[in-house]
C-alpha cells in the first residue's frame, strides 16, 4: 500500500516543459508527414518514358504546297504547320482592333515567335493545335469571308467546342471564350526544308 501512497504524491508538473515536448513531438511528426507525402505527390509527375516520348518531332516541309496545313504530334499534342501564302500573310494586318492580344503580349510563344507573323519564317506557321480555352482541336477555316464563322472573316481557325476564333497567326478574336492566342511550340529549322518541333536550336549536323 505504501507504493500507492507514494504515487499519490504527484510531483509538480512542469507545464512549460510539457508544452515544449508536445509541440516538438507534433512538429517533428508534421514535418515527417509532409516529407513522406513528397514521394507520393511526385509519383504523379510524367514518368521517364512519358518524357522520352516527348522528344522533338521532325517535319519535312519539302512537299508542302502554299496554303496547305499538315498536322503532327509532339508531346501528345497536335502540331499545326501551315505554309502561308502571301495573301494569308497580308490578311494579318487588317484586324488588330478585333483581337484580344494582337501583339501576343499575354500569350505563350518562344521569344523568336513573338512578332508580326508569330513565326521565324513568315511563311511557315507552327502552332500547338490545342484551343487555349479548354483544349479542343480548332478546325481550319482558311477561306476568307466565311460568314458562317463571323462577318468579314479573314480566314483562320475555329474551335467547334465553344466557338473560339483565331486568325492565320493563331491570334484570338474578341468574343471568343479563349483569352490567349494559340501557343507556338519551341521549334527550329535545319536547312531549308526540315522543321524540328520541340527544340529552340537545331541540333548540330551529324550529332547523335
Amino acid at each position, binding site marked *: 500500500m505504501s507504493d500507492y501512497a507514494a504515487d499519490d504524491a504527484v510531483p509538480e508538473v512542469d507545464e512549460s516543459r510539457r508544452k515544449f515536448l508536445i509541440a516538438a513531438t507534433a512538429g517533428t511528426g508534421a514535418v515527417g508527414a509532409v516529407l513522406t507525402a513528397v514521394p507520393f505527390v511526385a509519383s504523379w509527375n510524367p514518368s521517364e518514358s512519358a518524357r522520352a516520348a516527348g522528344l522533338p518531332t521532325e517535319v519535312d516541309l519539302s512537299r508542302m504546297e502554299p496554303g496547305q496545313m499538315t498536322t503532327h504530334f509532339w*508531346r*501528345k*499534342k497536335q502540331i499545326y504547320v501551315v505554309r502561308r501564302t502571301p495573301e494569308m500573310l497580308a490578311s494579318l494586318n487588317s484586324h488588330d482592333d478585333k483581337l484580344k492580344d494582337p501583339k501576343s503580349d499575354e500569350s505563350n510563344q518562344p521569344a523568336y515567335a513573338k512578332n508580326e507573323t508569330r513565326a521565324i519564317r513568315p511563311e511557315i506557321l507552327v502552332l500547338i493545335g490545342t484551343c487555349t480555352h479548354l483544349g479542343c482541336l480548332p478546325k481550319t477555316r482558311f477561306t476568307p469571308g466565311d460568314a458562317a464563322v463571323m462577318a468579314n472573316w479573314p480566314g483562320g481557325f475555329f474551335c467547334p*467546342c465553344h466557338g473560339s476564333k483565331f486568325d492565320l497567326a493563331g491570334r484570338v478574336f474578341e468574343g471568343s471564350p479563349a*483569352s490567349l492566342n494559340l501557343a507556338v511550340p519551341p521549334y527550329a529549322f535545319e536547312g531549308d526544308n526540315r522543321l524540328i518541333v520541340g527544340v529552340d536550336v537545331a541540333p548540330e549536323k551529324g550529332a547523335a
Partner: protein
Amino acid sequence: MSAVIEGKSGFRSWLNKRLPVDQFMADQLTGYYAPKNFNVWYFFGSLALLVFVMQIVTGIFVTMHFKPGETTAWDSVQVMVREVPYMWLIQPMHAIGASFFFVVVYLHMARAMMYGSYKAPRELLWVIGMLIYLALMAEAFMGYVLPFGNMSYWGAQVIINLFGTIPGIGEALTEWIRGDYGIGDATLNRFFSLHVIALPFIIALLVLLHLVALRQVGSNNPDGIEIKEKLGADGKPLDGIPFHPYYTLKDIVGVGLFLTLFAIVVFFVPTFGGLFMEAPNFEPANPVSTPEHIAPVWYFTPYYAILRAVPDQRTGALLMAISVLAFVFLPWLDRAKNKSIRYRGLASKLLLGVFFITFVVLMWLGLKPAEGTYVLLARIFTALYFLFFILLPFVSRADGNGPVPERVTYHAH
C-alpha cells in the same frame, strides 16, 4: 440499455456480450425517433444509400473485366459487354446507375432546400452532404473517362484543362494530373485507382459521418419544426415514430418504385435519348477528332453552361467553381427564422421556384451548342443562378418569420 442483453440466453446473448448487435439496433433503428410527417421527398436519402451500394456491387464486377490503359480500356469494355455472360447487363447497370445516383442526390438536395434542412442545428449535416456531392462528382467524372470513348477523352481534356486556367501553376498542374503531356496510360491508371479505391472509401466515410451527424441532430421534416421540443411522458417526441419498423417499411416502397424505374431504363431506354450514354462515347477515344460539340453528362451541364456563358476562360472557370461551392454556404445565407418553405412568404417561394427552374434550364443549355440564342439564354440564367444566392439573405430575413404550428401537420391514412 443493458436490459436488452439481460434475460436472454443462448447464442443471441453470447453474441451480444461480445458484439453489441441488439444495442446498436435499439440505438440506431428502433430507438431512433423520426418525425411522423415525412412525405415522398424523404425517400431520396435511403435511395441514395441504395444506389451507392448498387454502384459498389456492379463496380466490383465491372472491375473484374476492365483493363485500364490507353490501348486496353476501350477493348476490355467491348469484350466484357459482348462476350462475358451477363456483363451486357451489369456494365450498363453501373453506367446508368451513375445517372440515377445524381437524380436521387439532386432531389435529396432539393428537399433539403425546400424544408430548410440545412438550417441550425443541421449546418454540418448539410456541409458533409455537400462534400459527398463533390466527391461524387469526382467519382462520376473519372468513371466516365475510364471506358475511353471519344467523349471520355475530350471530356477529360476539357475538365483537366480547367485546372490549366489557374494563374502561374496551371500548365504544370495539368501535367501532374495527367502524368503525361496529354491524356494517356498514366492518366487512365490513376483515374482507375482513384475511382475504385480512394474515392469510394472517402464517400463511404463521408456517408457514415452524414448518418452520425443525422442521428445527433435528428431528421428535419416538411414543417421544419423540431419534434424534440414536444416530448411525451415517456421522454419520446410526441410527433416521432421509431425509424424501424415504420420508416424502414415505408422506404421499402420507395425502393420498389425506384428499382422498377431503374429496370425500365436499363432494359428499354439505356441511353435515355443520349442523356445517360452519349453517342460519341460509342467510338473509341481519338485525339485527332473532336466530337462536333462536347457536352458533359447531364448532371454536370448546369455548371458547364455557366462556364461557357462567360467570354473569358479564367472568369468562366472561377464562376463555375463558385456556382458549385455556393451551396455549401446556404445555412448561413438563409436568415429566416422558419425552416420550411411552407411557413415562408410568397417571395421566398418564388425565389426558390425560380432557382429550381434556372437549374433545369441551365442543365438543358449545357447540352446545347454554345452559339447564338443559347449563349444569350445561358448568360441570363447564369445571372439568375447567382441572383438566388445574393437575394436569399434579404428575402429570407424579410418573409421567413411568420407563425409556425405547435405540432407537425399530419393526416392519418
